[in-house]
């Protein structure tokens, strides 16, 4: 059903890609040649990207999100540039996160990063780890995200030059969160952040994936095309906080793929505040019995913003659990989209799944599209779902006004409260507080 891919856009990208494949895979930390397996992965992705079509609103998966404007932008891949000072990124730092990997326009910035000497895990940038740890990384990198089917995942993989790698060894519990900070500083370029997080058997960790903008002008446009892959081995637990606070003119296209083994547990909270157009695909595969995923999401947008969240939770084996809560708050002319697919495969008996999509419209011109999508092929399952779209409750507003609060304060407080429920599941105290303040400020400016 797709239109042919925009030839100009893709050919422009591939031209820059051809030039790059001859270079070193990494950005300066090591002069050696790219590993052949990495080269192969990229070659495969380039081939995939060449065969995939540019998505249009005629595609079911892109019905509500028109990215035709994106195809017209001649954004070239970002090149290594000026590294911001530590003081510039200070506001984004998270005090609990002693381990921090910082990427500037997709390039690793060791001077801004910090890795504790006893980190109890393999942590670093891909370019530095790819040779020595090939046997650990190779089975997972590019193996979970569907770059065969997804153009943006394919493009990210085709341009793969570096990324964040975390491997938590068997039986290790890492209490303090790891902060992966992706900063964009350049204008009219595309950058390709990449994450691979592997929790080996019985391990436990918390990862914060964070996208921020440091352009001088909030009007500056750029594209972030990111991919994150999570692999949880048996009994592993990963808490994943995803925070998208790009500037108001950015395009943010992201894919996250999660594979869960026996009795593993993936708990995620994603918060989308920024970008002119953002699209987040989250694919969770419950691949062995008693795996569990708990996913919460909040999109808080205004003006002309569009935030689209597509999730797919695939129950492949019996006795797995998935719970999902997603909320959108749209003000101004903003447009929020939620598509939540839940698949229960024929053998996935005793699946226990719930999904709720609650949405708040703050203006007459805002728009919210929500689509729960259940595909159930097993007969002994529990799948609850619900979706609501509404405005602030006038009885609640009256209650607050009858206690002396102004109309505006009452509305702001109720809007904040609506979003705060999701922030409550953020497992890092200082980050939760920061997010509450951000949401409070944003709801007060509405």
């Amino acid at each position, binding site marked *: 059903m797709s239109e042919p891919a925009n030839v100009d856009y893709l050919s422009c990208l591939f031209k820059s890609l051809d030039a790059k494949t001859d270079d070193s895979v990494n950005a300066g930390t090591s002069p050696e040649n790219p590993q052949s397996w990495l080269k192969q992965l990229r070659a495969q992705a380039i081939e995939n990207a060449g065969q995939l079509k540019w998505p249009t609103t005629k595609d079911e998966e892109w019905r509500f999100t028109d990215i035709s404007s994106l195809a017209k932008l001649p954004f070239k891949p970002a090149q290594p540039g000026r590294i911001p000072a530590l003081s510039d990124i200070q506001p984004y730092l998270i005090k609990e996160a002693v381990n921090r990997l910082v990427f500037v326009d997709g390039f690793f910035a060791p001077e801004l990063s910090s890795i504790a000497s006893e980190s109890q895990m393999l942590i670093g940038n891909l370019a530095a780890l790819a040779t020595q740890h090939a046997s650990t990384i190779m089975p997972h990198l590019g193996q979970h995200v569907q770059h065969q089917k997804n153009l943006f995942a394919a493009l990210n993989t085709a341009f793969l030059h570096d990324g964040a790698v975390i491997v938590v060894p068997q039986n290790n519990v890492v209490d303090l969160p790891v902060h992966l900070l992706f900063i964009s500083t350049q204008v009219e370029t595309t950058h390709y952040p990449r994450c691979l997080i592997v929790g080996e058997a019985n391990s436990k960790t918390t990862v914060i994936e964070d996208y921020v903008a440091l352009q001088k002008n909030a009007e500056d446009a750029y594209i972030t095309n990111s991919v994150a892959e999570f692999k949880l081995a048996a009994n592993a637990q990963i808490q994943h906080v995803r925070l998208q606070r790009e500037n108001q003119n950015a395009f943010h296209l992201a894919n996250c793929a999660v594979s869960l083994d026996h009795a593993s547990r993936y708990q995620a909270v994603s918060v989308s505040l920024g970008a002119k157009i953002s699209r987040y695909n989250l694919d969770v595969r419950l691949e062995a019995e008693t795996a569990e995923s708990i996913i919460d999401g909040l999109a808080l947008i205004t003006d002309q913003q569009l935030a689209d969240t597509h999730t797919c939770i695939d129950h492949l084996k019996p006795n797995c659990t998935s719970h999902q809560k997603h909320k959108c708050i749209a003000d101004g002319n903003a447009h929020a989209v939620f598509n939540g697919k839940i698949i229960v495969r024929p053998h996935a008996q005793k699946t226990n799944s719930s999904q709720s999509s609650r949405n708040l419209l703050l203006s007459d011109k805002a728009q919210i599209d929500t689509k729960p999508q259940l595909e159930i092929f097993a007969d002994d399952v529990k799948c609850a779902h619900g979706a609501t779209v509404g405005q602030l409750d006038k009885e609640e507003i*009256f*209650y607050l*006004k*009858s*206690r002396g609060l102004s109309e505006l304060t009452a509305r702001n*407080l109720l809007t904040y*409260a609506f979003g705060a*429920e999701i922030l409550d599941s953020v497992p890092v105290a200082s980050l939760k507080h920061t997010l509450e303040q951000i949401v409070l400020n944003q709801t007060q400016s509405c």
Partner: protein
Amino acid sequence: MKNQNNKTILDVQNLHANTQSTEILKGINLTVKPGEIHAIMGLNGSGKSTFAKVLAGHPDYTATQGNIQFEQQDLLALSPEERAQAGIFLAFQYPIEIPGVANSQFLRLAYNTIQSKRGNDELDPLEFDDFVREKMKLLEMNPDFLDRSVNEGFSGGEKKRNEILQMALLEPTLGILDETDSGLDIDALKIVAKGVNHLSNSQNAMILITHYQRLLDHIVPDYVHVMEAGRIVKTGGKELALELEKHGYDWLHDDRHNNVGVSA
């Protein structure tokens, strides 16, 4: 607690009010002076709760005739928040749950908003915490209720206590309690009544809206008004409530012209 001066807190004259173009209130007259406690009784649908909501400024109701003076101000010209700031407080029949807003945050916001409008100092979170805990003791409330979301998961009795707690914090000139006794067991009723009695003084006034006499065993009214079809059809002293309890509301129709009460 009757105050013999001539100051008036509330003066309602010939009040008519509509909701969705249906007339609910059809000419209410009521005068409330400092130190007085008024009970308004009546069957379901007689307009008691509507009267309470009109006083508080609920947007679903429109006053079509008459006027309300509240401490020399035209009450109908004020927004709900201005009424609250001026000293009107409505304890809701069904207090609203607000998930995501901590009760302490809500109480402090309401308290500080009203204090600053009245030209008084605001309290910071620590000062407020001490202040609110003191008030909670009066209502025998567990301080854990400060950390929970406003009314969320509270039992009926806890919600009503939380309403009286708000009244204790906001110190209104006129407290209107809309069926605060409904859904309360006898112990909770006594605690709520004790709180209301404690807050009642010679400078303020209360209007209690209730179906039943039993609240009035614990909060003794100066006047009892009976509403029917949007009007006050009978006014008497506290003994009127006992008569109603004994004979039922039908008794009024036999006795309508035998006015035993004092005019309020």
